[in-house]
């Protein structure tokens, strides 16, 4: 990089691509978020950030080696899924867990070797080769498990990899990620191999003439990347306690963004591992800080995009390094101007960060103000406790009664119309009771990202958390942690493990839903015939549970009903329509379709309408507002659901009651405001039976 002109200074040597700027960005982020929320700057939160960064970090470290050669690996997230399934599958077949982990890592190496061979021997462009394996690995993982099998019950020794804290404060996976980082840093920056990677990235043909074994070195880079991805998959499994085909979905984007933000050139040659680490931390800290400030995750997404553009554009424009692959002379005249340029780059980056913070403050002035106030009151109340135990083992006493209570609700997926309608009821209850409501989750159901949301709330110190669990295993470990810190925990909509929460707001049991749907389906089919199911994705835990009970009920009570097929809609209306049209044509004798995802029911209805198949009946689980028109046109005969607004309302009511102690174990009834008095059975608060909406009553509901 710094060829010619003598030995460069220490700074230029360690940060040839202006990586040091990222440290300033990190400090700026810390200053902004530390001001917005005092607990951001605690040791506890620092380790939490590091813990959550470990998996993405492993992907990013491996990717740095590949990107330095001018390649890319899009399949790292899918490899996590495949490794998770290989680990869970081989363990469930009786292999010791250590051997299963080894097998998963071996699979990662094999996958990496496959990429390496495709790229070096067959000269397939890396983007395309790994786009193919991106689908292939995820597809294999889904096919091997049928999408729905998930492996749980791993031994405690293995789970410790992802859940234990050494000495009570050092997360285990941080140790692993740190060791990998150090090993790779030495490999990339202190060995001939590392130099060769860079040389290949600058000019592969030139490297060959200089005696570098381009093929072998590139292959090794991909193998490293594959093993890192598999290791990330193993830690993911250990952290959330279950191995399933959807592990690591979408992780590749953050990892690639971190590498590029860290100064690596996507065209190869340039890039440092510590730069990648800094880039990753900038992104993760941004997300964590915004979560602590109670900002919805879209804001973090928007700012991530903005920071990425600002940082790369600044680097490209101000460094005046050509990105055109033809400009071979670009790296010659780069050094003298660098320092003045970096000041501009710095200014731009900080402007981007501060601009983002200002944007949030202005766009949401009230929330920002309340966050600062709540933060201040928590700070005074817990100052002594936090000071006494900076390692984070402090149990946080509840905030003084004059502060507004903070109730945090996490739905499984924020963009799902079902949860959007729940939120209306939750807002109403929060307004009645005068509490602050936090409402956040990933946009698609993703247990790992959901646990990150909850982790941030624990650190923030909310009064009570109510979770609709995308995966009971994954959420329960973090909910237990919340309880241990003295935060009230209830579950709603989808239960956690019984010991991880105090109460479950039960809208209807999986069995109740399955039974009602099966009875509706059988009734519409006239007692006998074939039925088809349109589900969300094949890996969706809730849907698979309902389908199990639908099948059980059909077998027990409606022996004349036979299942034709189960098709996935991926939670998308478009795909539900396509699949339903194919079902009614490919299985012409299907008499009734049961769609078990909110967007799938209107999609299936539109399909029947466009196919004009009045003879096929449709029922399912959906939100009335999306189905009303179709119900009146008789394309949907009925939908099964509870009153979702009431569910949101009841959840907030119950959460507040748990927080102020008026709802304690042993209660048999609960007075829930406008809903009257509801029954409490054991630790479950019952909303009532699932409700069947049809043309006669659907207009009475406005959600």
């Amino acid at each position, binding site marked *: 990089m710094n060829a010619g002109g003598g030995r460069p200074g220490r700074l230029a040597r360690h940060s040839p691509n202006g990586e040091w700027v990222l440290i300033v960005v990190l400090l700026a982020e810390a200053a902004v978020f530390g001001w917005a929320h005092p607990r951001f700057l605690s040791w506890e939160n620092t380790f939490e950030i590091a813990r959550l960064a470990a998996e993405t970090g492993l992907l990013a470290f491996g990717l740095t080696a590949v990107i330095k050669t001018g390649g890319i690996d899009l399949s790292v997230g899918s490899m996590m899924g495949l490794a998770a399934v290989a680990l869970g599958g081989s363990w469930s077949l009786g292999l010791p867990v250590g051997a299963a982990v080894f097998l998963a890592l071996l699979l990662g190496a094999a996958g990496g070797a496959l990429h390496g061979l495709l790229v070096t021997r067959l000269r397939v462009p890396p983007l395309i080769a790994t*786009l193919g394996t991106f689908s292939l690995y995820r597809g294999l993982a889904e096919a091997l498990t049928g999408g729905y099998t998930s492996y749980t019950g791993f031994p405690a020794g293995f789970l410790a990899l992802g859940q234990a804290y050494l000495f009570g404060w050092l997360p285990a996976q941080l140790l692993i990620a740190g060791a990998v980082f150090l090993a790779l840093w030495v490999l990339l920056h202190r060995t001939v191999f590392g130099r060769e990677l860079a040389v290949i990235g600058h000019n592969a043909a030139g490297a060959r003439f200089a005696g570098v074994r381009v093929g072998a070195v590139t292959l090794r880079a991909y193998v490293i990347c594959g093993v890192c991805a598999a290791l990330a998959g193993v830690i993911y499994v250990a952290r959330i306690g279950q191995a399933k085909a959807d592990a690591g979905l979408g992780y590749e*984007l953050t990892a690639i*963004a971190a590498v590029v933000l860290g100064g690596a050139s996507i065209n190869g040659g340039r890039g440092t591992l510590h730069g990648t680490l800094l880039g990753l931390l900038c992104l993760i800290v941004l997300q964590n800080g915004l979560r602590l400030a109670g900002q919805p995750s*879209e804001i973090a997404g928007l700012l991530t995009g903005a920071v990425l553009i600002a940082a790369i*554009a600044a680097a490209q424009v101000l460094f005046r390094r050509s990105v055109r692959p*033809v400009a071979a002379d670009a790296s010659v005249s780069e050094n003298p101007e660098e320092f003045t340029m970096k000041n501009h780059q710095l200014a731009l980056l900080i402007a981007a960060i501060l601009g983002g913070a200002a944007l949030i403050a202005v766009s949401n002035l009230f929330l920002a103000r309340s966050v600062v106030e709540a933060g201040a009151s928590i700070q005074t109340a817990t100052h002594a406790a936090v000071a006494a135990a900076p390692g984070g083992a402090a149990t946080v006493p509840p905030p003084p009664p004059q502060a507004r209570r903070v109730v945090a609700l996490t739905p499984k997926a924020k963009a799902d119309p079902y949860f959007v309608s729940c939120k209306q009821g939750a807002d109403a209850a929060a307004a009645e009771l005068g509490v602050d409501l936090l409402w956040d989750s990933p946009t698609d159901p993703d247990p790992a990202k959901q646990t990150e949301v909850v982790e941030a709330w624990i650190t923030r110190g909310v009064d009570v958390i109510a979770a609709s669990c995308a995966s009971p295993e994954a959420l329960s470990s973090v909910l237990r942690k919340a309880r241990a810190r003295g935060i009230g925990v209830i579950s709603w909509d989808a239960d956690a493990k019984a010991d991880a929460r105090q109460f479950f707001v039960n809208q209807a049991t999986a069995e109740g839903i399955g039974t009602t749907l099966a009875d509706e389906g059988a009734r519409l089919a006239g007692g006998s015939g074939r039925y088809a199911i349109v589900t969300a994705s094949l890996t969706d835990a809730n849907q698979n549970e309902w389908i199990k009970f639908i099948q059980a009920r059909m077998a027990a009570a409606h022996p004349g009903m036979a299942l034709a097929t189960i098709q996935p809609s991926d939670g998308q209306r*478009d795909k539900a329509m396509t699949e339903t049209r194919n079902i009614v044509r490919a299985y012409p004798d299907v008499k009734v379709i049961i769609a078990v995802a909110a967007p799938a029911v209107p999609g299936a209805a539109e399909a029947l309408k466009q196919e004009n198949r009045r003879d096929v009946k449709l029922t399912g689980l959906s939100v009335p507002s999306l189905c009303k028109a179709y119900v009146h046109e008789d394309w949907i005969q009925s939908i099964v659901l509870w009153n979702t607004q009431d569910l949101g309302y009841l959840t907030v009511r119950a959460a507040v009651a748990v927080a102020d102690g008026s709802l304690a174990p042993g209660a048999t009834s609960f007075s829930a405001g406008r809903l009257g008095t509801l029954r409490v059975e054991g630790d479950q608060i019952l909303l009532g039976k699932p409700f069947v909406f049809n043309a006669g009553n659907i207009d009475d509901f406005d959600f």
Partner: protein
Amino acid sequence: MKDWVKKHPREAALLGAIAVLFLLPLGGVDGFYTAGNLRNLAIDNLPVLLAAAGMTVVIVAGQIDISIGSQFVAGGIAAGLLARSGLPMPAVALATLGLGALFGAANGLLVTVARIPAIIATLATMVLLRNGVLRATGGDWIQGLPSGFQWFGLAPASAPLVYLAGAGLVFAAAAWALRHTTAGRAFYAVGCDHEASRRVGLNPERRVVAAFAVLGVATAAAALLNYTRYPTIETNGGLGFELKVIAAVVVGGTAITGGRGSLIGTFLGVILLGSIGTVFTFLHVNPAWEKAIQGAILLVAVVADTAFGRRREGTSP
């Protein structure tokens, strides 16, 4: 015939694969070969086909755009909101296409003026647009659309045929223009050798922005054709759309390194990848295998590219 196969090995191989795929449902499977099913299959793949045409131009010009899934849903939502505000449908369509051109041009400017590599720039705009849509709508579907929105007010029976004919004509015109006009050939030149195209006076930066804008318009058109099939608009649509489109283009023989590719190949790629799911449903194959097989086809296609010794260095078709 033999000459044609020799000159177009990729197209011939794709035709062979498509023939095999479409032979499978012949054996005792009812309902696949009906006019209605084939029309459904065509109309379902129309959005991917249009976007893939635009993507072919961008990839031929040596770039890539992974933000089109977000552009797709943003276009649909914009069309829905405009239609709901009372704008007549032709104006809605024009405004949506214009917005698509803006999205595309913005990507193009990030790549040329800000000099951000295309994959990174469009990664960022993908995240930005997706989160912006979520922020703006809160996840609520767009409902209460005027009755003239669905099928542009055409009769539901004839509308799919109008869509097919219209999109088919546009696609054919684009395929011809990309091969036989100066402006079309210029994309090949830029993708083949950026510097050389500058030396012959082509202004490659402007061509790259144009390629992205073409893709933006094509994606907006795809969104219009897709979302006007429904009386409401979902706000989390288009997830994974970019991968479907890029896979079809690459399977169709367009070189990811730029400078080589044809819309005929893209057309065949869309048919092959877009029909697998439906054929499998009719064959009663477990849907869990679909994704793995699509990935395998993509790999086989790119490996075949090199294994049969195709010219690799960028040359025009």
